[in-house]
């Protein structure tokens, strides 16, 4: 048991950059390119961690605290996440509220760090990020409420645990809708197409990327690693939700990581076949996700 927990913790810490590599590889394959190596994100992180840092003279301690607190918040949210076939390290009724709010804390400090530079572009990015995030929040909660209602449990581990197969038997339509809603939220929260384009080069059109323009060296490494960790967290939830956990044996471990792989490929495919939405359309997408999940919840009211 302890060994397994350690394995999950190691996977949580080690795998996230690989997920980013998988997304990029998928995009490259669809576009007919060879693409960067799968492990490119690790190389980038290693390079950045070796570097020194340059700070703008406008910035204060808030700018330095942003990446540190942001990464710490996302990583501690990982403690609440059920991986493989096992429950999470820490699990209690209502833990998904803490999960969502820890991600909120990461966003709050990142936005503050962006505003600390005094750059209008970074202010613009921060404004967009908090706007879209506060619209994504109700959608995320509605999805999780669907899971809680369908499984009759209130912790992330319980919602994605042994009660889930039974819930799929009884309330498959609602869970499908919730999974769709959650996927949209995952795309929005992780600044992916169609909400934000991680590859764009025009600051005016960026959301997340423009907020971290002034970070460099280890700070940028913390931010990039935190972003991949967050992507991994959403992938893990979706993987457990859609594939279940197959009894908790070794098979469930394989199934879980297969799910993450599928998630990465799915994100990559969406990015390949879609353009990003115009900024004014994004709220409509997020409200749409809320409506879908609200409808799923209505299906469960009886």
């Amino acid at each position: 048991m302890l060994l397994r927990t350690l394995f999950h913790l190691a996977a949580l810490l080690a795998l996230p950059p690989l997920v980013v590599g998988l997304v990029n590889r998928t995009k490259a394959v669809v576009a007919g390119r060879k693409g960067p190596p799968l492990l490119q994100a690790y190389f980038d992180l290693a390079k950045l961690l070796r570097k020194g840092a340059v700070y703008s003279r406008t910035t204060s301690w808030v700018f330095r605290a942003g990446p540190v607190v942001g990464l710490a918040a996302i990583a501690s949210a990982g403690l609440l996440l059920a991986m493989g076939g096992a429950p999470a390290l820490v699990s209690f009724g209502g833990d998904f509220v803490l999960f969502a709010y820890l991600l909120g804390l990461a966003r709050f400090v990142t936005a503050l760090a962006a505003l600390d530079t005094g750059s209008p572009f970074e202010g613009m990015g921060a404004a967009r990020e908090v706007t879209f995030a506060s619209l994504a929040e109700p959608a995320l909660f509605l999805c999780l409420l669907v899971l809680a209602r369908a499984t009759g449990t209130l912790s992330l581990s319980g919602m994605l645990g042994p009660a889930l197969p039974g819930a799929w038997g009884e309330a498959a339509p609602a869970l499908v809708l919730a999974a769709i809603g959650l996927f949209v939220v995952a795309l929005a929260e992780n600044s992916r197409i169609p909400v934000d384009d991680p590859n764009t080069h025009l600051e005016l059109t960026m959301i997340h990327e423009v907020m971290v323009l002034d970070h460099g060296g280890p700070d940028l490494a913390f931010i990039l690693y935190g972003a991949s960790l967050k992507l991994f967290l959403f992938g893990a939830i979706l993987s457990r939700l859609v594939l279940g956990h197959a009894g908790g044996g070794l098979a469930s471990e394989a199934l879980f990581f297969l799910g993450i792989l599928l998630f990465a490929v799915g994100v990559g495919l969406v990015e390949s076949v879609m353009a990003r939405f115009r900024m004014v359309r994004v709220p409509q997408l997020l409200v749409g996700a809320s409506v879908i999940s609200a409808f799923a919840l209505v299906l469960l009211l009886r």
Partner: protein
Amino acid sequence: MTIALVLGGIALPLASGLAAVALARRPAAAQAAACLLLCAGAALAIAASVAVLLTGEAAVSVRLALRLDAVSAIFLLAISLVSGLGAIYGTRYHSQAEHGAAAVRLQIFYGLAVGGMALLVAASNAIVFLVGWEVMALANFFLVLTEHEKREVQGAAFLYLASTHVGTLALFAVFALLRHAAGSFDFAAMEGVRAGGVLGARVFALALLGFGLKAGLMPLHYWLPPAHAAAPSHVSALMSGVVVKTGIYGILRVTGFFDAPPQWWGVVLLAAGGTSAVLGVAFALAQHDVKRLLAYHTVENVGIIALGAGLALLGRARGAPALVLLGFAGAGLHVVNHAVFKSLLFYGAGVIQHATGTREMDRLGGLARRLPVTAALFTVGAAAISGLPPLNGFASEWLVYLGFLEALRSPAGDLVAFAAVGAPVLALVGGLAAACFAKVVGVVFLGNARTAEAERAHEAPRAMLAPMAVLALACAAIGLAPAALLPPLARAAAAWSRSDPRLLAAPALRAGTSASLVSLVALALLLLAAALWAWRRRHLAAAGRAAPVDTWGCGFTAPTARIQYTSSSFAELLLGRFSWAVRPRGHAVRLEGPFPAAATFHTSVPDPVLDLALVPIARAYGWIASRMRVLYLQRLIQFQMLLILATLVAVLAWGFVW
């Protein structure tokens, strides 16, 4: 024994203003003495509240008609903490040596307001309660009027006075009705009144009007932003932090009298709470005066408290102890939490005003370098009010969430519907609050100074920073160890619902276990952040830190402070989602002709209730009244007779019909 402490907690603040008068020749000593008296009273009241909360036994004095039970103790704790720290803050913020008679007046009415509040939460008799209520309400009027030479202050104070009197009128009716049903003005006699029928409905509706006006529940919030913005900052902290809570206390107290409150009470409170929370934060986003913004956030937080209270009422109507416990504990803890972080934020706003002479956020910027301590403390308060872990705002909002989740699990479909609406509403409010405070901290403290005043700002004296530090520590302490607070909150919930404490023990234990795991994750967060910080520090020392450079301007090489995002531009995208309620008005003087005059542009956000409903109605009434006056002035005696006759007929008709 405890009741003596309570008595001290009421009497010392009431008398504290006298010291300021008696020693008026030596202003510094006078203010110190008044502050000491008030703090001594606050300390006694805190001791009494803690004793009551720890033992669960009420302190009673039948002869004085005082009774401090666990419900009152929560409120008395918040009142005493905020008022004591506010008095210390006030010694430098509004010093008697500098302001003379105005400071004396302020201290007299500050003491009266605090004493009145302590009296009303400890009262066990409707008459005593109303005496405390009016002392508080009137003292507050004079507190708002501290800078009475300013026109906007006069307007705000008058609006407050009119509103509070409407509320008091409703309260007279509430207690008259209860007296009629119970046969006595004693609260003890009123307990156990049956809620069914017309009486219960009337009492609840009137209580919601009277207490809701004080609490600032939408749409009864209209007086709150101008009044809280007009008062001196430590008075704003008192008003926003605790005076509005007396409205919550009243709603809880009156609904506590009834044995089985009908379900619709809870539903109405949930609806009012949800509306206040969402619209409160939406209007806050639109503000650019930092104190008005904080005042609108009070409306939001009162909404969150009302959500918790509504859940608890719903739980009592349905006989669901877990719902009662979680709803009440969430509401009760948020009462204390909001008092703590809202006072911290208002003190911070006071420091900003003191240092720069303005409350306009768009004229500030970059204050974190000039006021590092204030910036750090304000940021803690901002994160706490946004409900972010590991601070106290998260703990209480999380309890309310747990209440909604409890409803979600119930087999009954309608309770699930409340959860399906309530929890996402709370999530939306949390996201919006975080956005709003990212804007406040970002625009005021971060980036570059936008004006010369912001450039010249200076850090506040220690007497102003120390109270803020205490409050920030309280934010962290409550946020890190919420589990310790659940037993006292469960005692208060039992006292309020008059249910068997054993029924509430099981859900309290479950919530407590979960809360200790929240602490665990919070601890992990802090350790991780500290470790990362330490590693980077060592690494950068080794790798060498480059000299500071200018912010990357994306190729633009001549940036000024004025190209930064302002509070309006930061909120614009979000406000577009709320254009059905929040409609900023722009006032522009454009450049025209070959030699244009200076161009200006400013925006304001009309409050829908005040500016679009009440003011036009009052204008129309004034117009009609002035027409009538003409008739009087023409000495149309017949017309006056006709009016008297019409009134008589109307009164008689009323008598016959009812």
